[in-house]
């Protein structure tokens, strides 16, 4: 699913990633750990295709349409409601029966009652839950989660752990976290970043 050799990325003069090797098969759950600034976010963004490597090679077997990404920012429009936000992404990802899918996700993540309120008024926990909906909306084959637990409230954390615990052999998950204990499911692979 993912194959990288000598992956490197620098920003201007700063080298954030150097010589990283990654091998993840379909259905695996990769846990990426490391202190702050070790390049976890950069690695995930590289996998998502948001940035390109400045060195090394990277091969991700799926294209953009099959990747779900949850980063530091919720990537939601504050002036739009959850319905409108998800509808936009639903259209862009060409989801069949998107109304039903959106409704189902909002219910599951406890956001149905707030579906017509502008997200600008949401708490951080609610925003992150909605962001998770956005990431899961199109049933991605590759799910990338960058520090998902840091912004989730208790309810959201439970829901995420439930979701990850579901057996889905076609789905590969990469989680970056500097608190790996919170991850209930045992990862099948581990990558530690940071200064040697």
């Amino acid at each position: 699913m993912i194959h990288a050799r000598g992956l490197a990325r620098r920003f201007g003069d700063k080298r954030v990633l150097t010589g990283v090797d990654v091998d993840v098969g379909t259905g695996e759950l990769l846990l990426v750990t490391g202190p702050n600034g070790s390049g976890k976010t950069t690695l995930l963004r590289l996998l998502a295709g948001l940035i390109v490597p400045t060195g090394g090679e990277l091969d991700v077997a799926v294209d953009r349409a099959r990747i779900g990404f949850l980063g530091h920012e919720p990537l939601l429009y504050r002036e739009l409601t959850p319905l409108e936000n998800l509808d936009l992404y639903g259209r862009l990802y060409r989801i069949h029966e998107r109304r039903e899918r959106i409704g189902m996700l909002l219910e599951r993540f406890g956001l149905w009652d707030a579906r017509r309120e502008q997200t600008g008024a949401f708490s951080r926990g609610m925003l992150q839950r909605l962001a998770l909906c956005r990431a899961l909306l199109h049933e991605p084959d590759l799910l990338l989660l960058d520090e998902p637990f840091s912004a989730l409230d208790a309810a959201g954390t439970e829901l995420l752990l439930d979701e990850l615990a579901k057996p889905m052999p076609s789905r590969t998950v990469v989680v970056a976290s500097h608190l790996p204990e919170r991850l209930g499911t045992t990862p099948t692979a581990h990558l530690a970043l940071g200064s040697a």
Partner: protein
Amino acid sequence: MLLTAGLGLALLWAPEDADQGPSQRIFYIHVPIALTAYACFGWAAWKAFRLLWKGDERADLESYTAVHIGVIFGLLTLVTGSIWAKISWGVWWTWSERQLVLFLILFLFYSAYFMLRYSTEPGPRRARTSAVYALFGAVLLPVSFLAIRLADQLLHPAPLFNRDGPQMSASMFISFCVCLAAMLTLAGAIYLIELTGKRIDARLRELREQLA
């Protein structure tokens, strides 16, 4: 390379002998400089296109250097043009001189290029953004020229100043061509020198990082 530059300069002195009257001589310098500036911007746009189309990363420095030299020559065009205006018509600036106005617009445009480069983090994004901007410049050139012509018709319906006719005798033409060749050679030499310098800088930085 320095030899080429010296040769270019030596060639410049030759037309000074052609005795056409002091004001005309500026023409030999001004127009070749202008044409060379156009050539630089055109080269920059070509390199920019290659960067975007083929993903040739090295073209970034080449395009940047070309713009830099183009701006220098552009500035010289404005200065020599201003001198010419002073000599011919007694004013330092005139809006009815289309070449000058065009260069003024281009100068503004390409100066913004440097602002763009300066305030963006180095990397593939900056290279691509600069390239797109350089391409826009090449397109802006003819469009602006057209605009200036239209503006002239609107704002200056009666020609205020008479331009010196472009008809040239054979000897004048030869001198002109020699000057043009000299200017292009000069620009080319400076380009190569600057490009090499920039490449060395980049390599040095890379090596320094690798050691760090």
